[in-house]
């Protein structure tokens, strides 16, 4: 009976209910776009660390897990390598540089990463032979840069860095392409640590020390389940380091947490607005139907039937709206240019959709309460 009433009404007043659904569709688009934007921004910030083939990251102690503040030397690398449970360790030098083009194309800022070829941190290749320790002007670029700058294996790129007060240019040859590994919203260029040490920006007074200094160490474990044990060993046996896992490292990325919480708050508010808007809609709709509901009850429809019909309508309208909104958003996303950082990650989208499906029924609770309370006496003008 509830189904019958709900569906008949929706069909006969389909214009009105479609309008409700469209409002939900718009809210859905907004929520999904914010989620995708949050995902895209997060990804652009964390992708490099996410994809690192490491179980443990090591920072210099007391630098609040800030990669650029952290300074570690080669000697620490051997200390770490000796710890029982460590399978492999690789240095990571991270700085920024700019790829410039002789043909006048606009320069592209990149994250420049120094690694030991073959050690953790050296990225897996989509194509090309990759880095070799002795080839000092070789680089592996990520596919984001490759597609933006139209580069392939065998291409030459010019890296510009500032050393002292002078701009220095280095001609490098691309020996490999890896998948997208953005760090701090910039595509990455990988090179041997010794090369990185020469190319990286340096202050005027910075003199070459006897030991190469890099920022982080990427550690692979023999057995991942022994994370706690090995981390503890590292912390107690190697001086001046801080040991963490990738997810903690990501949260400590500059601006990462603040940015995500801003976007999450926006999303929560959009959902809240959705609840209020829909609640208002259905409340007005039910208020308009008071007399009609009174008659339905007077001729013997139980309150439960009337209330379930309304709830069914709310659920259907919400499902249709969320469906239209999701499809529309995904289609729009396909049409968007690739440089907008949006990412539709399955779990994020699904949880956003689940939340969106809840806003209708939650918003509708007030009108359900109203519908239940309508006195059938209203049908004969005797409402008490």
């Amino acid at each position: 009976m509830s189904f019958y009433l709900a569906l008949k009404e929706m069909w006969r007043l389909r214009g009105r209910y479609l309008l409700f659904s469209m409002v939900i569709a718009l809210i859905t688009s907004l929520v999904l776009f914010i989620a995708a934007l949050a995902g895209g921004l997060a990804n652009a910030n964390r992708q490099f660390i996410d994809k690192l083939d490491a179980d443990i990251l090591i920072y210099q102690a007391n630098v609040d897990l800030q990669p650029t503040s952290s300074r570690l030397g080669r000697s620490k690398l051997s200390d770490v390598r000796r710890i029982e449970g460590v399978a492999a360790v690789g240095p990571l030098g991270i700085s920024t540089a700019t790829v410039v083009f002789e043909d006048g194309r606009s320069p592209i800022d990149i994250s420049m990463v120094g690694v030991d070829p073959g050690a953790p941190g050296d990225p897996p290749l989509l194509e090309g032979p990759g880095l070799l320790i002795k080839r000092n002007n070789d680089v592996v670029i990520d596919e984001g840069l490759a597609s933006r700058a139209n580069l392939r294996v065998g291409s030459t790129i010019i890296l510009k860095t500032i050393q002292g007060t002078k701009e220095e240019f280095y001609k490098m040859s691309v020996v490999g392409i890896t998948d997208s590994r953005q760090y701090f919203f910039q595509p990455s260029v990988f090179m041997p640590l010794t090369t990185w040490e020469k190319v990286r920006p340096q202050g005027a007074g910075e003199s070459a020390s006897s030991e190469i200094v890099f920022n982080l160490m990427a550690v692979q474990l023999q057995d991942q389940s022994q994370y706690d044990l090995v981390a503890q060993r590292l912390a107690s046996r190697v001086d001046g380091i801080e040991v963490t896992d990738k997810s903690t490292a990501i949260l400590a990325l500059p601006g990462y947490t603040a940015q995500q919480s801003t976007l999450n708050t926006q999303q929560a508010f959009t959902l809240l607005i959705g609840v209020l808007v829909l609640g208002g809609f259905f409340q007005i709709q039910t208020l308009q139907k008071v007399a009609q509901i009174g008659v339905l009850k007077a001729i013997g429809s139980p309150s439960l039937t009337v209330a379930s019909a309304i709830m069914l309508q709310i659920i259907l309208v919400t499902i249709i709206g969320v469906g239209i909104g999701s499809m529309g958003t995904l289609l729009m996303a396909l049409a968007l240019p690739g440089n907008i950082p949006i990412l539709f990650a399955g779990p994020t989208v699904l949880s956003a959709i689940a939340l969106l499906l809840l806003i209708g029924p939650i918003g509708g609770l007030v009108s359900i309460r109203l519908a239940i309370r309508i006195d059938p006496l209203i049908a004969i003008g005797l409402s008490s």
Partner: protein
Amino acid sequence: MGDLSLTTALKTAEVTKIYGKDNAAVLAVDQVSIEVKRGEFVGLVGPSGSGKTSMLAMLAALLSPTSGSIFIGDVELGKMDEKDRTMFRREKIGFTFQSNNLVPYLTALENVELMLRLNKALDPLGKARARELLVRLGLESKLNNLPNQLSGGQQQRVAIARALVHNPEVVLADEPTASLDTERAFQVVETFSNLIHEQNRAGIMVTHDLRMTKYVDKVIQMVDGKVMRMLSDQAQIDMLARKGSFEAAEEQLSLTPFRFTVAGSQPELG
């Protein structure tokens, strides 16, 4: 008018309804005892505030009496809980209202079938009956029209079909002619009366328009919550309907050899 079966369909004994409590108490219905037989069409008349709508609400199991008893068939309404009363309404009562009678998003036929759906009796027989009633009421070409595509009179006739389709014990009509012009009002009441008699139902029509009593078998006049008069003589009823008010009919009626039946305790009447 027509042959009346002698079975009592509805009987009230000293029904009283008081709204509010203590100082704010309002006596709406005062010890009303009436009886309606199957096949009998009764006009419940009176000015506004006379208690006729409260009486109707109690007969429809929408409102519980403060005291007294109401029997429909052999079921006493006062002893029912809310759930039972809802079920009772959909099974045993047929209802037409003054306005907003029909569900606006259902067609004429669907509105009539709604009663059968509610009673889980929408079988081929029920469907045929719904259609038949609408055809009988002259709505053959309007079966699939929505209420907003029907005139006020047509809507009332659909409501009448809905009130009868499930074979209720009692059919109640609350001011069925309020929104109709005189000609249509007479047509609607006449049709209603015919169907009540044909189908041997007990019908009660609340109206303030005494001209509409032309088609009833009995007139019950309520004033200040009490039954003031009961008329069951057809000549008296015809006179009342022609004159349109008790005052106008009074003089003529008093000259006739018939007399009003006065119910309730005489001294209390104001």
